[in-house]
């Protein structure tokens, strides 16, 4: 499967990945100019944390082999697709119980900001060749590789 790799030492905290992700998932259009940066419904599925040494750490979903989010999901909304390797999220099935948010050990997940009804979950940009976060990363701190599971 394809996985987004992270070289944290190259991250400059520019938030390019965050913008790319927001742009990709913006219903009003995918261009960066379509992205209203004051509209709270625009949210990214990745984020950058600062570690205790103030280094930026990009956190992007792993689509784990044994995904805690899917194991914990009681509605069948979060599932591991054994063919693509992706952990897929179906918002129509989701019961917004947030067990996945609680269970992801890597703190990747969160509820949507405004309605708190759906999970902000990486979909690898519909499995396209280069996900937008990778495309928007100027330092190549994010890049994709094929990995064996």
């Amino acid at each position, binding site marked *: 499967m394809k996985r987004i790799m992270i070289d944290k030492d190259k991250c400059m905290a*520019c*938030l*390019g990945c*965050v*913008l*790319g992700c*927001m*742009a990709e998932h913006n219903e009003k259009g995918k261009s*960066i*100019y379509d*992205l209203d*940066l*004051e*509209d*709270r*419904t*625009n*949210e990214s599925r990745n984020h950058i944390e600062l570690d205790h040494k103030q280094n930026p750490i990009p956190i992007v979903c792993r689509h784990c082999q044994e995904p805690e989010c899917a194991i914990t999901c009681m509605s069948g909304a979060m599932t591991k697709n054994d063919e693509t390797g992706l952990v897929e999220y179906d918002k129509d099935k989701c019961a917004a119980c947030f067990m996945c948010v609680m269970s992801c050990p890597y703190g990747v997940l969160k509820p949507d*900001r405004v309605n708190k009804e759906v999970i902000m979950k990486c979909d690898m940009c519909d499995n396209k060749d280069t996900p937008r976060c990778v*495309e*928007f*990363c*100027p330092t190549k701190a994010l890049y994709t590789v094929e990995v064996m599971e």
Partner: protein
Amino acid sequence: MALKMKAATCNSADKILENFIAELEFDTCHHRIETQDIKCGFGLQGVCCKLCANGPCRITPDAPKGVCGATSDTIVARNFLRAVTAGSACYLHIVENAAWNLKETGEKKGEIKGKNTLNQLAQLFEIDGGGYHQKAVKIGEKVLEDLYKPRFKEMELVEKLAYEPRYERWQELGILPGGAKSEVFDSLVKTSTNLNSDPVDMLLHALNLGISTGLYGLFLTNKLNDIMLGEPQIRPASVGFKVLDPDYINIMITGHQHSLFSHLQEALVSYYAKEKAKEVGAKGFKLVGSTCVGQDLQLRGEHYQDVFSGHSGNNFTSEALIATGSIDLVLSEFNCTFPGIEPISEELMVKMICIDDVAKKQKAEFVQYSYEDRENISLYVIEEGIKSYKNRRNKIKINMPANHGNDDTLTGISEDSLREFLGGSYKPLIDLIVAGKIKGIAGIVGCSNLVSGGHDVFTVELTKELIKRDIIVLSAGCSSGGLENVGLMSPQAAALAGDSLRSICEQLGIPPVLNFGPCLSIGRLEAVAKELARILYIDLPQLPLILSAPQWLEEQALADGAFALALGLPLHLAKPPYITGSKIVTKVLTEDLEELTGGRLIMDDDVLSTADKLENIILSKRNALGI
């Protein structure tokens, strides 16, 4: 065996150039755009602020305000005004030097080549009596006096230079500029840390700067230069890399200040210089035009047939020009002199001399120009040209692209030469517009950049689309450098125009795209517009005239843009000028401004939809005029 790979380089409307650059062993802008392809979204939207130690602050839905409380509107307006301010400062620097040169030319009884223009200005400025030199001194002084006024004192010449209805409107809006340099100064104050937070006030200040930029930096620079360097005359000329003749000692000039070469261009064709050149095996000296100052020489080419080999291309051809190996010396005085030319010059042993420290290049020798020292400087340049030619020519290989450019680009068009061409009045052009044979006028101006499709791609495509719709195109700036090299300013280009425009062009033997020369000539376009409006008894916003700086590049272009908006003209940009992160700034510039000055900003990165919008504006203005 090493494989020669075609490097990934930028698209260009100029395919010969594109292929030439792709094969080069040098790193150019066309290469680097590929490695700078990932752009910061905050930068693009203008919502990054690093005016204080708490920054950089960036606006996101999670963080809608900077640490200080600045909103996206404040941040965007501040960034935008700073850019316009810097651009305005650049043009004011140019007019300031031109005015000093004119004043000294008068004082030292130097040659006055444009006597008509001198008299025109003297009359406009109400300078009575005195000889040519005395008038030149007084004109120079009047300009300088205005530039140096404090902010609270209105510049005197504004009322004389501006079209009357515009002046009144600006007065109502409170955007008449005080001393131009002071306006720049206070704008910097305004946009510093935790000062002005009012986006509308800052946008009005940008318009104020636009007025002094346009009337002084653009219009007056042209006029002062015409006095010193000669008035443009319409003539066909060679353009592109074909203007290079390797048999000469070639001096490439880059910048915007033609008057700084006033002495040199005579000295290079002196008996002395020719003899010195022959001693090292060259036929003589040639000035090779590059960037806007090259367009300036081209515009006045009638007066410099001997020394000026022709204009090679815009800023994004300058690296390639040096890479041909035919350039022996680069003489620069302003932008757009890319830092990228330095390593290529070094590699090819090309001497670099800079004569104005505002454009000092790291690898260039700095020789401060002054009117007083002009003779010594010219001698030094000749000496260094000889030295360079002698030193390098046997060591480097000349590599010229075949068939680049053409020999029949129509040049030398100005507000005065065009009027003369039309028979002493703009009436015939107005008749064609009224009759609908020409739908309207588009000023395609500004720069060249490597975005919006690639080098000159949007500019060329939009121009083609407009002439196809019988809209005549006037071009000034690096845009014309691109348009002429692809042949759109040659008479044969009439074939690309709509039937009606085509037959007019063919009848007159002119191309459908008229070459006004450098970006400074945006001031000449304003002069044309003013004349058209005056004949029709209307204000500028009523004209079936649109402006587009499709591939704007720099802060100067934004100051030009502020002028266009103050004039009340619709202005199109393909790439948004880093403002879309603010709803207020975007709304004011794209909508509300129409109520204030009549102008508005149109941002569109698609050629066809842009052409549709611009054509519709022209049609609706025709409609409003009842034509």
